[in-house]
């Protein structure tokens, strides 16, 4: 068997693929953050909680109402999106235009409250959610066993990421969005309801997080604290990609998944730190991030 740096090539290919899969999660989550920051200038620390709500909603809807995975894939993000819009309407709107730190603290507080309430009700051991039957099993690729579900995660995440990028960068709706946040008074003069646009954008951003949550439900422990772990990593990804850069968030997400995967092979104890190491280096060389516009 051929070896690369003392690791069999087959194992390495497996790790690269795993990296891409995890990267797909990072991409989805950081995309939502980038949309919210890029268009609304809100630092959304409730993003992890929204990811968690997506996963929790999937499990709870299944247990209580028998709603299956495919329906949850649409319904859960919509429900969480509505929660997001309620938060935007009642809280975030009141601090619009203030320093970023206000939105950071406000959303962080909201996230802690949501987490606390759900912990009280559901505990922390995790809720059980079994995978849809069609995804059970997997295929042997020769260098690794690829569960069908992980393959689906890559496809679903990439489709949604590309769709979002296309909508914001290439469509008329996207141009309204970008213009509305650039100069809201002017856009209002053109008869566009900017406050509604802002609500919808925030709702859409958290929908992306909830969508990632639904994708995560069958493979990770679904607990009220699941979002708090991933949140910081995802913020690092966004910073590396360049705050607010939509395409940058997607590419960086996948790239960081791969780098993390390789670290897990060569030196596992560093795997939780490597993304932050990259962040430090990137900030020193390109303070606005890999894909950010130089200020």
């Amino acid at each position, binding site marked *: 068997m051929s070896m690369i740096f003392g690791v069999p090539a087959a*194992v390495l290919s497996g790790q690269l693929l795993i*990296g891409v899969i995890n990267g797909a999660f990072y991409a989805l989550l950081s995309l939502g953050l980038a949309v919210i920051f890029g268009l609304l200038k809100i630092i959304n620390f409730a993003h992890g909680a929204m990811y968690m709500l997506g996963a929790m909603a999937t499990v709870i809807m299944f247990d209580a109402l028998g709603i299956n995975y495919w329906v949850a894939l649409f319904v859960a993000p919509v429900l969480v999106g509505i929660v997001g819009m309620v938060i935007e309407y009642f809280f975030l709107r009141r601090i619009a235009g203030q320093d970023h730190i206000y939105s950071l603290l406000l959303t962080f507080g909201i996230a802690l409250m949501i987490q606390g309430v759900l912990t009280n009700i559901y505990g922390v*051991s995790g809720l059980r959610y079994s995978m849809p039957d069609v995804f059970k099993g*997997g295929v042997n690729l020769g260098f690794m066993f690829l569960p069908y579900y992980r393959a689906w995660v890559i496809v679903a995440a990439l489709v949604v990421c590309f769709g979002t990028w296309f909508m914001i960068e290439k469509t008329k709706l996207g141009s309204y969005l970008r213009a509305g946040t650039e100069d809201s008074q002017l856009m209002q003069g053109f008869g566009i309801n900017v406050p509604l646009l802002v609500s919808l954008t925030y709702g859409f951003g958290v929908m992306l997080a909830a969508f990632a949550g639904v994708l995560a439900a069958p*493979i990770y*422990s679904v607990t009220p604290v699941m979002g708090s772990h991933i949140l910081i990593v995802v913020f690092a990804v966004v910073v590396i990609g360049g705050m607010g850069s939509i395409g940058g968030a997607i590419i960086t997400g996948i790239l960081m998944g791969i780098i993390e995967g390789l670290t897990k*092979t060569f030196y596992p104890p560093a795997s939780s730190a490597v993304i932050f190491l990259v962040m430090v280096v990137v900030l020193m060389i390109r303070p606005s991030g890999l894909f950010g516009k130089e200020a």
Partner: protein
Amino acid sequence: MTMMKKLLTSAVASALMVGGAQAEISDKTVKIGYLADMSGTYRDLAGPNGLKAMEMAIADFGGKVGSAKVEVVSADDRNSPDVASSTVRRWVENEGVDMVGGMVASSVTIATTKILEENNKLGLVSGSAASSITDAHCTPNHIHYVYDTYALSIGTPTAIVKEGGKSWYILTADYAFGHAMEADVTRVVEANGGEILGSIRHPFPTPDFSSFILQAQASGADVIALANAGADTTNAITTAAEFGVTQAGQTIAGLVVFLSDVHALGTEAAQGLQLTTGWYWDMNDETREWSDRFMEETGARPTMVHAGIYSSTMQYLKAVEATGSDDSQTVRKYMMEHPINDMFAKNGRVREDGRMVHDMYLAKVKTPEESTGEWDLYDIVRTIPADEAFRPLSESKCKLVSGN
């Protein structure tokens, strides 16, 4: 006059002696503090339901000891030795707490038992894992009740090696507890003629185990051992099931697994998992009877820690009643002299190092076909006798053990 003097002196002396020997219950109240992680990683194995278990014990005892009433206070230690220390200090120094029960994270227990020792109060530790609690960190002021890392590392690995699982690969949580567990497992596996092919130190916590499972799979080891706990263990098991580890013939060995973890995983993901436990709710009529009452109160089946909290609180109250005292040394001495026979343990005894030794059990998680309900999770495959399960006193480093 001399006569009078003599009489007076002896009266005073005997009054003093009576006061000394017949210590009574301070403030006419037996005050118990329940300290546990009420909201974090370890919430479900003890947490709020552990407080319920303690309250059940007090209610079953009758709510009072003689004429003294029994009171409970509780606090969330947030798994922080600092938070826990200041709470326990306040309890014992200002609020008249006589005994502290629960106690989960090992770091919290090690910190708070020092304070109990300074103030000569008693701790009944039910939730912690580290075996050093009754070894290097033993005090005359606490008893370690349910299980420890030594007992857990003896049970599962020995059984699996004997069944033919010779080569091992260990996934280790990268902090003190994981390292200790890895060392214990290595010792037991090698002593039984098995070998360790390799290990990975993974960050704590790790949400995604796929990379590590893939490496463990590639190692070709017979057994993949999980020297971690809580969410790390459940995540690793879920991922192993997804990647077809057990179907491909490798065995997963969980080292610190609670009923709440297996319940969260479900039999489909956890089937065949071997683990060591100090107690299981569905062992006999006595355990079932108590567990039914617990379930009515809480909606869940009790873990071994919940049962241990009930049992240790009950034993404590019995000791206070029998000795008529809530003085920690009097009570601890009584508990050491009287074997424990209740729904939690048969012939359990408290050793001088504070270790409560009792039979442990090797369990195997049922398959979905074998399981008749959401809590019908374990098959008890072997009883590990008390003397085999816990570290022998001859190997003890505890200062209380004679000869040390």
